[in-house]
């Protein structure tokens, strides 16, 4: 009966209640969306970074080098000769060098030439097939296989650059020999082959260079005396000593640049953080306004319903009971705002995921309640409680006989 009265009272003031819930919903959903996207980005970024201490590549923006080399989202800075890596590979402070060669794509998914340890680094597991052994054999990531519906032993021709519309390398075809299980890392979105495959395709092209002079120019600097260029290399160190000395050595003494993922990503998050903080402040303001609107609604309600309250008190209602009745009204409004807000944020996440997926082959997971969202629930309830408590306490000030006799 108490809850029924609460519900009826809320229903009797549909528009007011709707406004309270709407405000709370938007506040909650914005914050929750930010939390989810932020967490997932950070999660994805740090998962892909793990173990990689340094990236070397052509000179340019270090952030760009990291984004292209580690996350496969930006354009590469340029090429470096494979031979330059020699000194690094023999350096005792270096544990592992993972060379990467990029430049082609298939339907928008990057084809990356690399070595086996790269797969091992991401703990890749095969859903079907085996790893690449020979030239022109590829292993495709889970997302790629799913999106492009690629099957084992299927063949395809790559196109140049990173856009779907790039010029096709029609005469040499790749063959799928393995499909990876999804593991939520960057390789889900990659097509992997050995370095030779990439070199072979582009060497082959140079022979036809006369037909496409622009292509020729582009590839001219890729070719060196040895003919073997790579885009960048991911380096793991044996000890922190490497981190102290090697990056400086490379930046000063070679044509390459060394970038440290940890530093660049921190910089990136700092930049993003400003935007996220601004959004959070906005969302908190919206939540507070919702609280104020709950307060005003309940306060007015108490004034209007003073007679009702006095009546219920005279009929045997306890003040505590009526106090909780008003509190429940406030809590109901903020709680339903919270629930709708979380639902809305999941919907937003889904939309954002679709957009990111279309543009960057990067999707967001629909997650369970995050730890922060539990805090958000507590915050929403606190807003409800604080907004409701002053009007509710008014119950204890009602003078029954005076109120009812007042004509």
């Amino acid at each position: 009966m108490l809850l029924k009265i609460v519900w009826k009272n809320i229903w009797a003031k549909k528009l007011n209640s709707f406004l309270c819930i709407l405000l709370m919903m938007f506040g909650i959903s914005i914050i929750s969306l930010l939390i989810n996207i932020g967490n997932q980005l950070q999660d994805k970024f740090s998962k892909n970074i793990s173990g990689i201490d340094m990236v070397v590549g052509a000179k340019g923006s270090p952030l760009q080098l990291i984004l292209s080399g580690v996350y496969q989202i930006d354009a590469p800075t340029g090429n470096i000769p494979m031979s330059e890596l020699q000194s690094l590979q023999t350096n005792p402070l270096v544990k592992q060098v993972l060379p990467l060669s990029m430049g082609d794509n298939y339907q928008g998914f990057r084809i990356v030439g690399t070595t086996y340890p790269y797969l091992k680094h991401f703990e890749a597991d095969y859903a079907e097939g085996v790893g690449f052994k020979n030239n022109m054999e590829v292993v495709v990531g889970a997302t790629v296989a799913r999106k492009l519906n690629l099957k084992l032993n299927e063949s395809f021709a790559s196109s140049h650059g990173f856009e779907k519309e790039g010029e096709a390398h029609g005469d040499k075809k790749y063959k799928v020999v393995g499909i990876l299980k999804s593991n939520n890392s960057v390789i889900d979105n990659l097509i992997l082959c050995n370095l030779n495959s990439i070199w072979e395709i582009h060497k082959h092209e140079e022979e036809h260079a006369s037909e496409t002079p622009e292509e020729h120019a582009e590839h001219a600097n890729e070719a060196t005396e040895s003919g073997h260029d790579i885009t960048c290399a991911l380096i793991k160190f044996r000890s922190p000593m490497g981190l102290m000395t090697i990056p400086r050595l490379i930046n000063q003494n070679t044509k390459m640049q060394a970038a440290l993922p940890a530093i660049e990503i921190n910089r990136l998050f700092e930049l993003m953080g400003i935007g996220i903080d601004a959004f959070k402040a906005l969302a908190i303001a919206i939540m507070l306004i919702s609280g104020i609107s709950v307060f005003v609604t309940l306060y007015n309600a108490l004034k209007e319903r003073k007679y009702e309250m006095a009546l219920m008190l005279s009929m045997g209602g306890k003040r505590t009971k009526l106090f909780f009745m008003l509190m429940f009204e406030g809590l109901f409004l903020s709680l339903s705002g919270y629930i709708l807000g979380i639902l809305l944020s999941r919907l937003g996440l889904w939309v954002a995921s679709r957009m990111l997926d279309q543009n960057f082959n990067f999707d967001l997971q629909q997650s369970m309640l995050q730890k922060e969202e539990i805090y958000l629930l507590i915050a929403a309830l606190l807003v409800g409680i604080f907004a409701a408590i002053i009007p509710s306490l008014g119950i204890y000030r009602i003078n029954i006989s005076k109120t009812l006799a007042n004509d």
Partner: protein
Amino acid sequence: MLQTDSLKFSYPKGHTFSFPNISCKAEETLLILGNSGTGKTTFLNLIALLLRPSSGELRINNTETANLSEKQITEFRAQNIGIVFQKPYFVNALNVSENLLLANYLGNKALNKSKAAELAKDLGFEYLLSKKVQELSGGEQQRVCIARALMNTPKVILADEPTSALDDENCEKVADLLEKQSKLIGAALIIVTHDHRLKSRFTNQITL
């Protein structure tokens, strides 16, 4: 059923009322008359246990109410006293039937839907049970208020100017209903009024 003994009440500003002793047995009707300012409503509030007297005794249903705690008073009122206020107060968000059942709920009794339906039929508003209270006419509202006062089968029914806002026809009806219903459940009926139409009807009167 109800006796008072030298009840006095002082307002904080200093005005003090002394009330005559009254007693009212079950199934009896007592009319309390008086002009405005003579403390009629104060007297009713004292009997309804909505105010505590500054001195004097009030026995209802063989219970000396002066000794009850605030919490006991609230329960006692819900169990034993049905009040018909001068103005028809309702919980506006609830419909007629729910307003009746509210009396059961607040009096800590099981919700008695058949009783509500029965009273509605007796008082002639069974077709209004699912309506909103704001949609009712003044006479209809007054009848619902009477039904609500009867929901917990009280020992004493108090009515504060129950007819002042009604026309002659409705006045007659309401007075009939109050008398009939209180006799039916064996309750004492006390009506506070200055309505001369009631004076001729009930002979047991006291003037403040």
